[in-house]
């Protein structure tokens, strides 16, 4: 028997209602030291990545969001009770620090999509150029395009940062100038400032009609859950 773990939390002594978890397994609140962990008892060695399971995981973590701000575990985390105890005991200080950071906040996600310009059309007279000249012309265009995207990425990042200034407690921003998904940002927003944040983002979006935006949230703070000393590999496999 193993424990499937959903999230870590403080300030809740009992669950409001019976929750179904991964594959319908009941969810219970395990108290370890003064921290709570939402877990399900499961009889399996691996959790399949299916949309149902992913949604179940997300639903359990979300279910406590109205009462507290939990630190979500990554999907697929299976441990023995002893391993969970060891983990919490060894990292208690870091976990409490992280819980303090996210307390009273939710995560808001912003993704910005921008079309990658593909300038493949030939310039006038290019057909008459030699192979070497044509190669250099194409290369030059690629380099200029890449520089343009980098400059654009820098400008958009600064613009977004200025837009949310004073409304976020923390942020994680990933910029990929060469990709269609140009920028992905996670903002840690205090609940009291959430409406203000939404209004600001809605207005800001109108000023940038050339960009596609995907706003989602509020989320439990998945992007702010990591702590030092964690396993570097994404799925924890050596």
């Amino acid at each position, binding site marked *: 028997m193993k424990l499937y773990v959903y999230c870590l939390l403080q300030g809740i002594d009992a669950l409001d209602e019976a929750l179904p978890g991964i594959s319908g397994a009941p969810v219970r609140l395990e108290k370890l030291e003064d921290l709570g962990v939402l877990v399900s008892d499961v009889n399996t060695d691996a959790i399949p*990545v299916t949309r149902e399971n992913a*949604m179940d995981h997300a639903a359990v973590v979300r279910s406590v969001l109205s009462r507290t701000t939990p630190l979500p575990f990554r999907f697929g985390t299976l441990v023995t009770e002893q391993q969970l105890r060891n983990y919490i005991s060894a990292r208690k200080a870091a976990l409490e620090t992280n819980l303090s950071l996210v307390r009273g906040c939710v995560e808001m996600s912003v993704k910005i999509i921008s079309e990658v310009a593909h300038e493949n059309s030939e310039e006038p007279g290019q057909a008459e150029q030699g192979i070497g000249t044509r190669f250099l012309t194409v290369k030059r265009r690629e380099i200029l395009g890449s520089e343009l995207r980098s400059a654009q990425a820098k400008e958009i990042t600064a613009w977004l940062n200025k837009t949310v200034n004073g409304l976020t407690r923390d942020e994680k921003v990933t910029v990929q100038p060469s990709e269609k998904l140009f920028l992905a940002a996670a903002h840690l927003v205090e609940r009291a400032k959430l409406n203000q944040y939404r209004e600001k983002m809605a207005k800001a979006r109108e000023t940038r009609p050339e960009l596609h935006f995907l706003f989602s949230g509020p989320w439990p703070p998945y992007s702010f859950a990591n702590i030092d000393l964690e*396993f570097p590999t994404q799925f924890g496999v050596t």
Partner: protein
Amino acid sequence: MSFDQIIVNEEWEETDLSLLETLDHVLNRGLVIAGEITISVADIDLIFVGLNVLVSSIETAHEVLRKRQTE
């Protein structure tokens, strides 16, 4: 899951985006207990990649699977 606003290319349905965003969060982020994440990637219908948010998860999952098969 509710979204504040969704403005993307027309081919994306809101339900797809809701799932995509959920997967992006639960698969790519969150606390990791060293060495204790165990997943199975048998159900690959999750891959409807267009935005590249999922690519890293699925590529990593394939890598894990390949390693396991060679062990």
